[in-house]
């Protein structure tokens, strides 16, 4: 019995550790405010989820993107399970694309010594090389086939700087995802 009590102590300690590490976990997503229409809040710790894939959108958005999934999502992806089971959450992070002088210096160095490119060719390389800058917004898809039955089982949310976007924005989510009905309304595929 004492041993069990000790175990509970250990669990409590672990809980403290978790709550201590929480502020480290990325976006300033402290007080959860629910997004309109679907009532989705920012899932704690999502920035630490595993990577599904990455993407880029050109002008006028000019951003770099990463999709992360909770454990339910990652398991479904790897096993090719469709539709996604209840409890699945997919997070889409996006950042402004910015050029990096450090990266560009490395490209210049490599281009000069190794590949001997012309200055015009080097410029072309630099013009198409970007890193992630400031975050733009984060979006979530939450699977609950009962609660969100009228929108393919998905609840949608977009947060700008941890504040939910307005109702009009959220009314566009499902219609935009509808063409991908065959893949349970999810565009992103798992990156090998």
């Amino acid at each position, binding site marked *: 019995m004492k041993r069990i009590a000790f175990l509970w102590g250990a669990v409590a300690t672990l809980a403290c550790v978790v709550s201590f590490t929480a502020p*480290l*976990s*990325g*976006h300033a997503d402290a007080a959860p405010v629910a997004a309109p229409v679907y009532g989705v809040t920012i899932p704690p710790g999502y*920035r*630490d*989820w*595993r*990577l599904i*894939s*990455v*993407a*880029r*959108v*050109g*002008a*006028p*958005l000019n951003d*770099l*993107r*990463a999709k*992360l999934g909770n454990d339910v999502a990652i*398991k479904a992806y*790897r*096993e090719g399970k469709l539709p996604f089971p209840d409890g699945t959450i997919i997070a889409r*992070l996006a*950042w402004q694309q910015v050029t*990096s002088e*450090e*990266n560009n*210096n*490395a*490209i210049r*160095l*490599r*281009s000069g*010594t190794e*590949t001997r*490119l012309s200055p015009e*060719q080097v410029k*072309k*390389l630099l*013009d*198409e*090389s*970007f*890193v*992630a800058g*400031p*975050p733009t917004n984060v979006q979530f898809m939450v699977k609950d086939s009962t609660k969100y039955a009228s929108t393919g089982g998905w609840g949608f949310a977009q947060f700008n700087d941890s504040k939910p976007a307005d109702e009009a924005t959220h009314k*566009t989510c499902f219609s*935009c*995802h509808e*063409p*991908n009905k065959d893949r349970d309304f999810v*565009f*992103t*595929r798992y*990156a*090998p």
Partner: protein
Amino acid sequence: MKRIAFLLVAVGVGVVAYMAPVSGHADEAASLASPIYGVTIPAGYRDWKLIAVKQLLFAGKGEQLRAQVGNDIAIKAFKEGTLPFPDGAIIAAIHWTRVPSEDNNKVLDGPFPGTQSFVIGTRVNVQFMVKDSKKYAATGGWGFADFTDGKPGDKALHETCFPCHTPAKDRDYVFTRYAP
């Protein structure tokens, strides 16, 4: 007590054995070591946490989309801004070809007419930086490795790693910053 210990071991082994095949890429099975540095592919790296993403246009290779992921030591150092990175830090850079997405473009054409959307095509290679300040003292404390389809690149390729990273000396030879 013995029974509980046995049970815990059995459960532990069972979980690991069950999860191993699920954890991603085929290149993790019995990895060969990279020349010069002797780095092998760290098990389970595809499950590591995301550091950042980027796009790079490489001479003769076309556009690539890239993701950097880190083991727990690397992620902690990134989040806390610790420099130099502590021994044991491993950063993995996963590189894919970049292809246009017709599916995405059709959808984006509504709200953002003419927008070009790109997704990943196929895996190109994966690179690792492994921090061991003693073993790799001559190269800033970092061991480097480049694997294509599970096979390490040649010696000549690995000779280019460290010189290429020297412009980032002030940041412990690491280009990638943590994406908030």
